């Protein structure tokens, strides 16, 4: 029974990684850039929920819903603004490293602004999910409310994203821009707008992930997003960067491996094991689990 509990916990953590990884993978697929600041959008989302529910007086359902919606909206606005000010001028720069370093700069900036406003001390985040959860087999197997909500939310997001990309015009435009920017422009697609939309969706997903992450692990600090951000990036690469189902699979694998190795092997070595899995998968399959192999033409 305890194994099952750990497995479900891993699934829940994996779902959070998957939501973050979805944002990473979409931005990477379309803008071809590693957005190192993505993890910090999570942190921004958490602080927005923290301040809004603090101002309204947390606990009430309306307050919680309002704060989450506000956090999602503000985060996507932040994503759009960052893209416009910091990343768009560097599109077409001579080296792809330029925009990577700028993203690192944005990451430092967000962390330090949060540090100035909220201070370095760890704040206790009150969960946005008040439901106690379910209990099976005479209380031997308890699943917390936040765990169930996390898994359900991530599944809903995955299905919506798949529908959005495959069934709507905007989604098809995204696929076209990801494939070939020049050809997409010739087909009358507004590349700048499409990339902006991608950043908006990616950052909104980061805010959702932030709400779930801080509900499950209620310690809020300016660096809360950094490590989950990197792990989600690893998950996106593991699943094959640019692939949406790949990000989901990568996230789930990572979450389950992390929780199980923490429990059964060593809590100190769990990160090493997680990264070790990435190394092994990439050696066997150099483009990730669901990645496309693109043959280079001479």
């Amino acid at each position, binding site marked *: 029974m305890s194994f099952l509990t750990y497995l479900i916990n891993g699934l829940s953590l994996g779902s959070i990684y998957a939501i973050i990884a979805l944002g990473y993978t979409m931005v990477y697929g379309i803008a071809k850039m*590693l957005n190192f600041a993505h993890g910090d959008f999570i942190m921004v989302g958490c602080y927005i929920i923290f301040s809004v529910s603090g101002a309204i007086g947390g606990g009430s359902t309306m307050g919680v819903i309002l704060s989450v919606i506000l956090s999602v909206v503000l985060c996507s606005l932040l994503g759009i603004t960052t893209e416009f000010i910091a990343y768009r001028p560097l599109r077409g720069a001579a080296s792809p490293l330029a925009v990577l370093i700028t993203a690192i*700069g944005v990451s430092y900036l967000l962390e330090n602004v949060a540090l100035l406003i909220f201070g370095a001390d760890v704040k206790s985040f009150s969960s946005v999910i008040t439901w106690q959860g379910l209990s099976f087999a005479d209380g031997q197997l308890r699943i917390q409310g936040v765990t169930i909500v996390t898994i359900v939310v991530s599944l809903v997001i995955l299905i919506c994203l798949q529908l959005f990309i495959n069934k709507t015009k905007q989604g098809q435009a995204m696929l076209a821009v990801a494939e070939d920017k020049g050809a997409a422009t010739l087909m009358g697609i507004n590349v700048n707008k499409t990339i902006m939309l991608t950043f908006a969706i990616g950052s909104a997903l980061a805010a959702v992930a932030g709400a779930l992450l801080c509900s499950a692990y209620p310690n809020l600090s300016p660096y809360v997003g950094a490590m989950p951000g*990197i792990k989600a990036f690893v998950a996106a690469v593991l699943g094959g960067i640019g692939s949406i189902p790949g990000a989901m699979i990568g996230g789930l694998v990572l979450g389950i491996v992390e929780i199980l190795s923490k429990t059964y092997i060593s809590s*100190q070595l769990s990160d*090493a094991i997680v*990264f070790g899995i990435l*190394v092994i998968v990439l*050696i066997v399959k150099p483009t990730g689990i669901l990645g496309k192999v693109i043959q280079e033409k001479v």
Partner: protein
Amino acid sequence: MRIDKKTKDNLITYGIVVAAFLLIQVLASTGHLSSHMKGLLVPMTYYAIIAVALNLCVGILGELSIGHCGFMCIGAFTSAFFSKLTEETLPGGLRFFLAFVIGIGFAALFGFLIGIPVLRLKGDYLAIVTLAFGEIIKNVLNAFYIGYDSKGFHFSMKSQMDLGLEPDGDTVINGAMGIMGTPHDAGFTVGIIVLLISLMVVLNLINSRDGRAIMAIRDNYIAAEASGINVTRYKMMAFTISAAIAGAAGVIYSHNITTLTASSQYFGYNASIMILVYVVLGGIGNIRGSVIAACILYLLPELLRGLNKYRMLIYSIVLIVMMIVNWSPKVIEWRKRTFGNLGIKKKI
């Protein structure tokens, strides 16, 4: 005697380092350096060294590595381990020399072993695997315990108690507590000498037949392969040398501090990214630029300490603005229109 342009260029680079060294020595002996500044000198040298190492990997070989501090970590721990063991038996100079050789040897060995799987990958996949290896090295060292007693060495991955040492035993690497009390063998002079040696190694490599092969692979590996260049061999060579030099930076780091721990601040991916920032702002592929950028960017947040809370904020804004001004195609075009070709460096 006629000297060609490249030799002259290299001599200028060495000259800058020597001149900076002499200037600082003069300032220090006349009492113009505060003790705070003196404390920054050695870190400046090891950051310059690792920036040179990373530039060899990113600029010359053309592969993005964000785990170079992992090699620095290997160099730091192996050399400090040796120095700690032989602290009483060997004289200072010889001990440091051997520790240095051991540090770069192990860093090169790890560079070689990690290079075998890593260099098969491309682009961002390669970058994330170097990050993964850097984190693995740091995490494993944090859970690594080794000690010795009359019966020989004991090691464990669980805890210090698990070593089962005799009463006369001594723990050398104590997990997350690291290595305590490494002798302070590396000062500013040693750092500068190692920096000069690394510069000589890298600059001579670039201007050699091997270096040209490495740069040909960077520019177009298919064309290089078609010209009969052994791509794997040269990639491995550049990566291993780069790891060895990063290890040298680690040796200086560990012999300049009292407690060596595998902390994220010095050996995590954040630290590796910081070095990458030095390399990119100094100019990708420009070795002299890396040295200068490492010194300036290391000093910048320290000199802004007076601004206390705002220093990292200012640093991050400076970073973003500098990147946009230096790299944005539109800004470059605007600069060309306004200033003509003044101030625009010719791209090689």
